[in-house]
């Protein structure tokens, strides 16, 4: 029973060769694929900045301080490229979108984590997924054909009721007859950023330790008091990150805004007036950019938008990751 059976004679342990090389090749290829992300981001900046340069040089500081955008020669005067109106439009639309989307998203996230009966939960999740998968151009189509015209009556009513009050009156001014303007665009964008804010806040809420919630309930808290005392403080960082990501999306949303904002270059407090955002003005005018360096000027708007959204998304990613680390630390 103790015979030593024939084993193939032990091979030398040093048989390297092709095998080890293939390992190195594979890791190099995968590293290259990973680094591609960094390369693309750098390339975006380099190539767009290069094309934007003529317009930036032409417009100078006026590019960010002037509110007027005249891409034509008027009476011998050259074109004017001032992005301020579009920065204003982007800001207004994003703020409107956040005002609508943030409470609703937090509500949905609370519903999904705290309130929903199991069966309803999956239905609501499906609806939100559906919302996330409808292309933005379809929302734009719906906005321009259905929502805008329908909202004009509401806008008119609000204008009639509030138009004479000093501050509110200027916000709720005369609407455009088609209903296209900051408000309509803002509301459409709100719908489109609900899924991303919801999904992140929901993840954050889900990581609140059960012990904290139980502790609040044990003190006799109602559900709302529990949410305020245990869920919100714990998830504050993550919620901020979610809102910032939503803001980034809102600022970059293009086609739905282009269809519903009414395309006007102006700075006005009137939320029902037509305007333009950085993204929408590029999409609307790229096919017909005016006299040179018109196209370069539109690309310059893109560079501005890129810079703003990268900063916001970078900050959001950092905030979410911090919150993530802290929560994992807390629950581990």
């Amino acid at each position, binding site marked *: 029973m103790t015979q030593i059976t024939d084993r193939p004679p032990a091979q030398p342990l040093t048989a390297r060769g092709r095998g080890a090389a293939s390992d190195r090749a594979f890791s190099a290829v995968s590293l290259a694929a990973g680094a591609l992300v*960094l390369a693309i981001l750098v390339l975006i900046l380099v190539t767009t900045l290069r094309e934007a340069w003529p317009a930036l040089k032409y417009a100078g500081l006026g590019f960010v301080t002037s509110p007027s955008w005249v891409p034509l020669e008027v009476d011998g005067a050259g074109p004017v490229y001032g992005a301020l109106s579009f920065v204003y439009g982007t800001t207004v639309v994003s703020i409107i979108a956040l005002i609508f989307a943030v409470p*609703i998203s937090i509500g949905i996230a609370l519903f999904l984590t705290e309130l929903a009966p199991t069966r309803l939960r999956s239905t609501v999740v499906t609806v939100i997924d559906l919302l996330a998968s409808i292309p933005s151009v379809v929302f734009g189509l719906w906005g321009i054909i259905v929502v805008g015209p329908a909202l004009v009556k509401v806008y008119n009513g609000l204008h009639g009721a509030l138009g004479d009050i000093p501050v509110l009156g200027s916000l709720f001014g005369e609407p455009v007859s088609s209903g296209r303007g900051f408000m309509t665009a803002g509301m459409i964008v709100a719908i489109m950023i609900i899924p991303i804010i919801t999904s992140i806040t929901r993840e954050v809420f889900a990581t609140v330790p059960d012990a*904290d919630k139980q502790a609040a309930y044990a*003190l006799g808290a109602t559900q709302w008091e529990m949410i305020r005392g245990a869920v919100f*403080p714990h998830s504050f960082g993550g919620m901020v990150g979610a809102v910032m990501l939503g803001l980034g999306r809102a600022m970059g949303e*293009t086609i739905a805004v282009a269809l519903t904002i009414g395309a006007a270059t102006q700075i006005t407090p009137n939320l029902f007036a037509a305007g333009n955002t950085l993204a929408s003005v590029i999409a609307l005018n790229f096919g017909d950019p005016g006299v040179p360096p018109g196209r370069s000027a539109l690309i310059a708007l893109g560079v501005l938008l890129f810079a703003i959204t990268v900063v916001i998304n970078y900050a959001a990613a950092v905030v979410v990751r911090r919150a993530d680390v802290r929560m994992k630390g807390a629950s581990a």
Partner: protein
Amino acid sequence: MTTTVQAAQQPLSAPSGLGRGSLATRRRLANTLVRTGIWLSVIIAVVPVALVMYYVIAKGAKMISWDFLTKPIPRQLANPGGGIGPAIAGTLLMTGLASLLAIPLGVLGAIYLNEYGKQNALARSVRLMSNVMTGVPSIVMGLFIYTAVVLTTEQSGLAGALALACLMLPVVIRSSEEMLRLVPDELRQASLALGARKWRTIVTVVLPAAVSGIASGALLGVARAAGETAPIVLVVGLTQRVNWHLSGSNTALPVQIYRNATEPFEAATDRAWGAALTLVVIVLLATLISRLIANRFAIKER
């Protein structure tokens, strides 16, 4: 932890000067209000989805016919007739090519992050930057391809596919890394202990174990890309005829929806709804298949 408990105490102890009854009523009222608000927010979110779907189906369905899906696009959008055949072809061509580019590269990138780089400086910055890249507006990606590709070549389906691939890449990387992370380390060790090289372990053990999750995530990315409009508008140009070539002007469903939506004619609006229904069906099919694959994965995990 301690601050949390204190915070929870505050609302309880603050109104201690008030009578018991009024305190209970106020608290109950606040609670009811908030619960109502939460339900309301769900309803507010459901309504637009329902409305959009209703309009797309109601107005789009009557447009759908074989002719509509296959005929060339009319030169004058104001005139009735014609179809969206070239747009469907363009969408399939561009999303197809974009997937062929972005999915393998994205999966490889995810392999780098999860299997090689892990927590080193490069991997951490790639991870952070792909999060940032996910947030780069699609119109900017369009401008990038315009300045980097179109200016030196021409407006083409290839340029469109490249733009879509750039948009998909970070999405695929992130979702694939998530899935690779779920593969238990024991499997890698088992394979390595059998004398497998790392790359063979990754290709023959790790990837197959994560394949349905990766496929599901990638398909979601494909669905997103199929609905992208802004970059396509900038870089592919326009055509009325089916163009299966990567060179030369092309078009896509979202572009046709956009163009028809801006025309104030009924024929154009109808065409827009018909194209919207077609696009939504394609996107939802991709999403549904992705869900099915993901569910199968979930069961196998258990």
